[in-house]
């Protein structure tokens, strides 16, 4: 045990030295501790829109998913209690969602990378508004295209899944 103390001390000294030496070049970060909402404890503090976003991102697939992806997605969907016809409709809704989600994030990330190269930052809230709009329009589509019973089942399932989510409070 004792023989390892000098080694640990050396590592810590290196960390100090690196922090001081590095002042002139790399970015210096001031991190703020996140306020994390544990959905298992406070599900009511996770907005439905955020729960839907996480759920939709998780269960959606890209265009032409592999067979393994389809099987996994089906396992996700069966858990919702949707009947086959509603599952099939929901699968196509998920595919549309994912295509639009990927495009929005890719567009934003391109602009963020360009801004970073100019030592600028981008306003992520523009992206967040677009993602919220996409989630809301997807929910609207679910309400219209699924059976009323299916849409209600899906909603109550997504809300119940908040217990498995941890979300940073805005």
């Amino acid at each position, binding site marked *: 045990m004792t023989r390892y103390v000098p080694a640990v001390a050396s590592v810590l000294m290196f960390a100090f030295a690196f922090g001081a030496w590095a002042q002139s070049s*790399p970015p210096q970060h001031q991190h703020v501790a996140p306020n994390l909402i544990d959905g298992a404890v406070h599900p009511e503090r996770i907005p439905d829109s955020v729960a839907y976003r996480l759920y939709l991102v998780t269960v959606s697939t890209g265009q032409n998913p592999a067979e393994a992806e389809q099987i996994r997605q089906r396992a996700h969907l069966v858990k919702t209690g949707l009947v086959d016809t509603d599952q099939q409709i929901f699968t196509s809704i998920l595919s549309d969602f994912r295509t639009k989600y990927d495009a929005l*994030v890719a567009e*934003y990330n391109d602009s963020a990378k360009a801004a970073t190269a100019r030592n600028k930052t981008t306003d992520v809230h523009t992206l967040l508004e677009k993602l919220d709009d996409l989630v809301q329009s997807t929910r609207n589509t679910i309400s219209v295209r699924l059976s009323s019973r299916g849409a209600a089942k899906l909603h109550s399932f997504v809300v119940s899944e908040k217990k498995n989510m941890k979300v940073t409070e805005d």
Partner: protein
Amino acid sequence: MNRSILFLFGSLILLLDCSGAHGQGSCGASFQPHFSVYTSISREGKHIYTSVTTEGWTDISGQCNMSGATHKVQAYNQLGGTGGWNESSWSCPTCNFYLTNNETIDGEPGTTYPWFCDGSSVCSIVGTFWDDGTSCPSILGCVVPSTETTAVETAVFTTETAFNQTIGDSAGDSFDGSTVTEDNAAPGQDTCWGTWSTGPRFTGVTGGSWSVAGGQVVGQPNHWGFDDVGWTTTAVDYYRVQDPAHGVGIPCGLTGYQSMTISCPSGSVTYTPSFGNKLTATIEQTDVINCRYDMNNSVCQTISY
């Protein structure tokens, strides 16, 4: 434990780095991580699917030279010793990230599989700067139904009833694709039969198998069937005449005690109580009554014949 040490060490370096920033005063940027993690379990019979999604972004305010830094997100998903970290590619610190790490195993009944999950965000300069510390529950392998209910589907072959069963559990697991098979929990009883009978005595169920959500119940999640219960018209006609002629009263009938098993990788597991489901078919003068007494309900159909 190792990840916790790594995170603490990363935080230590981060604090050191941040104090340098304060002292320097040339880069007063503020970083606010906005990450979320969603963990999910889905099951289809013996198959266990887990997913861990990490998504979010870092809100950066103020001016700072960020050209040297990149970020990525990670999702940890280890199920029964299979899997581990999955991570996004490095990208700009203000980029939006989302990543899902999926795992699948086939579970054995009675075996509990440890599940470890985590989500984190990593900076190329300071290391891990956000970690949700998620803990995930262990998962029981190859769950079996805890409930089974019966509904009358329709009358078939004039005097028999096709019953449609729904199985489930409290977790809402899917059993679609599994095979359920009947057997006898106890010998069947037949009060219509006599030594004079030309037909066979009912001694028990025939040992049928059904694919959950397949066959006649395709498209109906967690359903199996149809389970046909009843006498044939030939038997009904015969016993209505022969039983009274041999001093046996009408009504008479059969009773079966049906145990149900469901397929798992190492074999089948019985999910009905030890006494099984009771199936009855009664011949009356002007009708027949077919009943199925299931784990969670019972239902009968009376057919005029």
